[in-house]
């Protein structure tokens, strides 16, 4: 039980008064960063990183990682209240979180989101504490083909989600892929669909599309409906936290499944965003009342939040043990480690035990601190919905614009956000589902490069996707997922024949 001794030592490092102070400060900053759409954990940490150079290494990383936890918590707030995902991994949270808020259950949705985040993170930290070397070896098994198999699985577990006609789903998905293809093609090193326009060089950022499609689109809809937020009459109950907890216990299966998906995606580095989509898709599949998803089912909040937080936390594991960041935020933290003269890699655990175990202990403490802070503020967040739309509407638009600008410090992006907003409004009016578009936009690029890298490695043979049990298993599972919705139909027909 070396790990336990080390961990106890870590707690003694992290528990000092200044370090606890940095934790509270970091989590609070992180929540604010998470709330502002577009600012995001990666940008927030990048901006604050230089401030920490004069601090003690361990305190600095504790504060920065707490900003990260805070941002993970905070991303859910705007998703639920205004249908604006503060972070890419909160998109799936909007599917059921926002309907819940509209039904006056914002407090319950927020409590469910925060609690699930905590559960996800907690299990991921346990994984880091006890299985780090083992998991690191597993992550190394992931080459291009395995990555593609994972992305394929995400797509397939999401197929059949929408109640709209399949042709509409396919159409928006194709649009998402097309948008994702704009900009530099990493495999050939040439520009695609930029037509000599400088602004198009960087392609369409997923965050800008999401802020526009969801946030601005939603505001346009609300305006049309007569400038009133439906959740306005929601009663704010202070005991909402306890009541929701009692309800959450029923969804333990979804939680466990989502933790597994999240940890796995964080380690491999699939990332928090695919993890949240995959967990949502799986939760819907496993549920008895599939139709209630998308209409305010609390399980639809639990699944993506648990997975996103588990993935976000376990993404630090490959960073510490291998030096590969599992998420953009982890990439910035990695830069920080190097500046402090810490070389991440297999030897970090033995060379700098104080630092590593202090960090791991702070993951436990930081998440507990974070949970307490966010849960105590639930009633206040929910109370925002009582503010009349004529006041809060313009504020949301301004926050969205600031968010879109921050992503690349570009005014063009703000214009793009408005254009996406109009599209979001039109799509909703015409009953085109937005989720497949977003999924294609965020994963399209990654899936394309993994597929083409695999094809380069195998010299064009598809055998590479069944070359070993790992990739073969993933691919087979994807196809099972893809065909699953047809099974009941087939069964029905067979029965009719006999």
């Amino acid at each position, binding site marked *: 039980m070396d790990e336990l001794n080390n961990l106890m030592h870590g707690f003694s490092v992290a528990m000092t008064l200044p370090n606890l102070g940095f934790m509270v400060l970091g989590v609070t900053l992180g929540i604010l960063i998470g709330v502002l759409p577009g600012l995001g954990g990666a940008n927030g940490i990048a901006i604050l990183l230089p401030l920490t150079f004069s601090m003690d290494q361990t305190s600095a990383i504790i504060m920065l990682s707490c900003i990260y936890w805070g941002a993970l918590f905070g991303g859910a707030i705007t998703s639920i209240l205004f249908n604006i995902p503060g972070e890419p991994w909160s998109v799936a949270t909007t599917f059921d979180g926002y309907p819940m808020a509209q039904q006056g259950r914002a407090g319950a949705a927020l409590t469910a989101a925060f609690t699930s985040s905590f559960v996800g993170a907690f299990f991921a930290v346990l994984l880091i504490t006890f299985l780090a070397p083992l998991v690191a070896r597993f992550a*190394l098994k992931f080459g291009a083909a395995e990555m593609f198999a994972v992305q394929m699985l995400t797509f397939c577990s999401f197929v059949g989600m929408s109640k709209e006609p399949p042709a509409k789903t396919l159409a928006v998905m194709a649009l998402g892929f097309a948008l994702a293809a704009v900009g530099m093609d990493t495999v050939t090193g040439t*520009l695609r669909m930029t037509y000599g326009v400088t602004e198009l060089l*960087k392609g369409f950022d997923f965050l800008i599309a999401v802020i526009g499609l969801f946030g601005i689109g939603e505001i346009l809809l609300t305006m049309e409906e007569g400038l009133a937020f439906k959740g306005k009459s929601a009663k704010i109950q202070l005991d909402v936290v306890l009541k929701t907890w009692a309800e959450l216990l029923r969804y333990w299966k979804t939680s466990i499944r989502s933790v597994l998906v999240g940890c796995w995606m964080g380690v491999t580095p699939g990332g928090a965003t695919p993890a949240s989509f995959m967990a949502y898709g799986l939760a819907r599949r496993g549920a008895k009342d599939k139709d209630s998803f998308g209409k305010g089912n609390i399980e639809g909040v639990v699944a993506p939040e648990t997975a996103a937080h588990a993935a976000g936390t376990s993404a630090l594991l490959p960073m510490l043990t291998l*030096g*590969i960041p599992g998420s953009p935020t982890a990439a910035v933290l990695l*830069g920080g480690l190097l500046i402090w003269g810490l*070389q991440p890699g297999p030897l970090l655990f033995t060379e700098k035990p104080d630092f590593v175990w202090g960090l791991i202990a702070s993951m436990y403490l930081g998440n507990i601190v974070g949970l307490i802070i966010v849960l105590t503020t639930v009633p206040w967040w929910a109370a925002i919905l009582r503010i009349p739309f004529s006041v809060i509407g313009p504020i949301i638009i301004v926050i969205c614009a600031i968010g879109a600008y921050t992503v690349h410090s570009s005014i063009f992006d703000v214009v793009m956000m408005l254009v996406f907003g109009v599209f979001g409004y039109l799509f909703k009016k015409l009953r085109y589902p937005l989720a497949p578009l977003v999924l294609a936009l965020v994963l399209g690029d990654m899936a394309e490069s993994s597929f083409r890298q695999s094809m380069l490695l195998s010299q064009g043979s598809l055998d590479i996707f069944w070359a070993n049990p790992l990739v073969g298993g993933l691919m087979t599972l994807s196809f099972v997922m893809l065909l699953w919705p047809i099974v009941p139909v087939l069964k029905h027909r067979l029965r009719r024949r006999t």
Partner: protein
Amino acid sequence: MIEFKNWAARALVSAVAAIGLTGAAHAWEPTKPVEFVVPAGTGGGADQMARFIQGIVAKNKLMEQPLVVVNKSGGAGAEGFLELKGAKGNPHKIIITLSNLFTTPLATGVPFNWRDLTPGAMLALDQFVLWVNADAPYKTAKEYIDDIKAKPASTFKMAGTGSKQEDQIITAMIDKATGKKIIYVPFKGGGDVAVQLVGGHVNSTVNNPIEAEAHWRGGKLRPLCIMDTERLAYTDKVTDTQSWADIPTCKSAGVPIEYLMLRGIFLAPGVTQEQVDFYVNLFKKVRETPEWADFMKKGAFKQTFMSGKEFADWVSKTEAMHYGLMKDAGFLAK
């Protein structure tokens, strides 16, 4: 008396300092925060260096105004370069370059050339090392190259960062040296590339030292040779038995390949000589800090410093070299 002496000494020092300051006040200084553009994504070599410099400047208070790192990685860095090209006469914007200063315009045809910017200073040169997995049977570069020659073309796989950029150019050079085609598989960042090799998904990489150092120290990767005219000067042991200086040059191993990557600073077009001087002096001060020395050692950089005409000539020569290499490899934009 002692106190008085101290006081007098202090007064003298501050008087001298005040004269010094008035003298310095004539020189140009930034009047608002300086944007430090990185034409690459977060976490890569250029980004690490830029953020590191930002840290040194802030910690040692080398500049009154803050230095703010901004990533403009779109179109293999074209976004960042074009932004600086468009900021004519703006002294509050500088850019750190990597080889994409040459490769991006050549490969994509984006309307940009380094002559559109004002050359600032060379900070260092980054090395390239040929790496294989520690479990591979090759102990020397010669054994590996001989095996490539002995086997049919397209047997060996090389992972690298980006497409038609430095890693693929070097791979094309190895193709030429061996007469056999190596399959080149592009990945997004140097860290990913090293891990692909550790995981055994490819046969070799040409990672920069800093990207693969931890894996070498951990006994997962083996360096075969370094692509420079001479060995590195860092003799501190990295593993139990080897230091950076123990890696032979590729040339001595029978692979005549030399390639170094520029880590330098450029300013917007149309800035004054005074403004250029300010930044050159700033980076001279950065290079004198002990933190910088550590960083150079960790990443096994070649510590060449150049500015002014010398630097412009070097860049011009290197551009011509890239044109030749990329033309040979068929990487030029049509």
